[in-house]
C-alpha cells in the first residue's frame, strides 16, 4: 500500500501500522516520535499513535 509522509510516498506492506510506515520512511524520525520529541499528525492535523492502522493513500506529517 502507499502512504504519504511529509509529502513523500512510502510503499509499505498491506496491514502495516503508522509506525511501520514511519520506520520505512525514516528510522530516525520513528525514534523521535516514539520518544515524544516529535509528533505524527494525520492530514487533518490530529495526532496519531504509532500503533494506528492505515488505509491506502493516507497522509501524515511529522512535527
Amino acid at each position, binding site marked *: 500500500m502507499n502512504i504519504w509522509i511529509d509529502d513523500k510516498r512510502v510503499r509499505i*506492506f498491506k496491514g502495516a501500522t503508522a509506525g511501520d510506515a514511519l520506520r520505512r520512511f525514516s528510522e530516525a524520525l520513528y525514534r523521535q516520535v516514539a520518544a515524544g520529541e516529535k509528533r505524527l499528525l494525520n492530514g487533518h492535523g490530529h495526532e496519531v499513535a504509532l500503533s494506528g492502522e492505515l*488505509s491506502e493513500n493516507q497522509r501524515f506529517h511529522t512535527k
Partner: protein
Amino acid sequence: MMTPTSPLRQTPKMVLMGLLVFIFLGRLWPAEEHIVIFHLNDLHGRIDPLAKVARLVEVERRQNPNVFLVTAGDNFSGNPVVDQYRPRGFPILDLQNRLGFAIEELGNHEFDYGQQALDYFIDQARFTIICANLRHLKPGGISVSPYAIRQTLSGTRIAFLGLIQADPQTKIPDTHPANLAGLAFDDPLQTAIHYRFLRQRNQVFVALTHLGYDLDVRLAQELKELDVIIGGHSHTAIPEPAETNGVLIVQAGSEARFLGRVDVIVDGGRVKKKTGRLIDLQSVTGEDAAISRRIADFNRNPELERILARLPFTLEGKDALGCLMTDAIRKELNLDVAFQNMGGIRLSFLKDPIQLKDVFRLDPFNNEVVRYTLSGKEIRRLIAYAFERGGQIDLQVSGICYDVKSDAAGKAVDVIITAEDGSPWDEERSYQVGLSSYVAATYQVPFQDAGESLRVRTNDLIIRFISSRPDWQRYRGVIRARVQPAVVGGADAR
C-alpha cells in the same frame, strides 16, 4: 347528578389527551438536558488505566443521571495478560461489565480470538454490542444489533449506530480471514445511509464507528443527520474536535492514554450544543479502589506460568533460538523460508521448563508475520543487505542455510545459499517468505511484491510450535547463518 356524557366527566379525558398532544409535539421536553458520553477506543488489552476511568465516570454519574460510557472497538489484542487469559480476553469483558459500559462497536481485533470467543464475549456482556454492516452468510453465529437506543431519565432518546471498517479490496475487516468465516461486511458508508431514519425517531443520533478518522470525515459528509461520530481504528487523538458538515467527530487516541468526553445539551427535544474533549489519564490521580484490585488480580494471570514444553537441555545462543523462532513461523504458516532479525531475539537461552511467559520475554514486540513472494535473487539481496547493516549476521533463518562472504569493509561480496540439509538451492524459482513486521518495515530492500501482513503474531506462532513438541535435538548447536571472511582479492562476487 352527572350523566356519562356530561362535560365534567369528560374533563379528565380532555386533560389526558391534551397532555398527550403536548408530549407528542415535544413541548414537555425538559427545558435543557445535559448528556455526557464518555468514550474509549482501541484499548488493545491495556487494562491498567481503567481504574481511573471507573473513578471519573462514577464521579460524573453521582452528579448527572444521563451519563453513558461507550467504546469504539479493538479492546482485545496487544497485552498477553488479556490475550492469554482463559477464557481469552476475559479481563476486558469483566472490567467493561464492572464499569457499566452501555454500548460497544465491534472493531476488527474483536475477531482475533475467533468467533467462538467473540460469541462468549457477546453472551456475557452486560452492554449492547453493535455493528450495522456485518452480515451472516449462513444462519447462526455471533449476534449483534445494528444500533442501540439509550434513554435519559426524562425520555430523550439517543441512537448509537455501529459501523466497522472493511478493506476496500478484500471487503473484510483487518484480522485473519479464518476468523471471519460465514460473515460478510457491507460498505460502511452505504450501510449508514440506510439508517438515516434513526434521526427522525431519536433526539440525539451518534455513529459509534471503527472506521478510522479519514472515513469518519467522509461519513460526516455523507450523513449530515448525525450529531456526533465517536470513532476508532486509526488511533487518532483529537483534543479539540471540530465539526464536519455539522457533525462533531471525536476519537480518543488508543490504549487508554485518554478518556474522551462528549457533552450534549438537548433543549426542547433538539440538540442545542455539542462539544468534545480528551481527559489525559496520565494526569489523573484518583482510582476506583475495587477496580484497581481487580486489575491487579488480572495482572497476576496464572496462565502465563503454564508450562508449554519440557526441554531435555538448555537451548543456548541466538542461533538456536533464532532457528526455533523461524521454524515456528515457517512451519506453522506453511511458508518456504522465514527470517528473524537478531535484535528481535530478546533472550540468550531457554531452559527447562518453557513457560508461556518465556515466549513473551523471548519475543515481546507483538510483531506480525508479513508474507512476500520473493525470487531467489531477492532473498540473496535481503541477506546481503541485512549483513551490511551491522557487518555481521543479522538474520536467523528457516528453510535454507546461508554463508556470507565479506570483505574487510564489511560488504557482502557473496551469499551462498543451500537447502537446510545442505543440498543445492534453486535460485531461479520464487519462494513464499515470512518476515516479521519489523524487518518488513525497516529493511530497505526493494521487492517486486509489496507484501501483506498475515494478521498473526510471531509470538503466537512460537507458542503453537513449542506446544507441538518439536524435535529439540534439531536445535542443539544448530547454525544456519554464517559469515566467511573473503580471501583478499579472491572474492567471486555475483
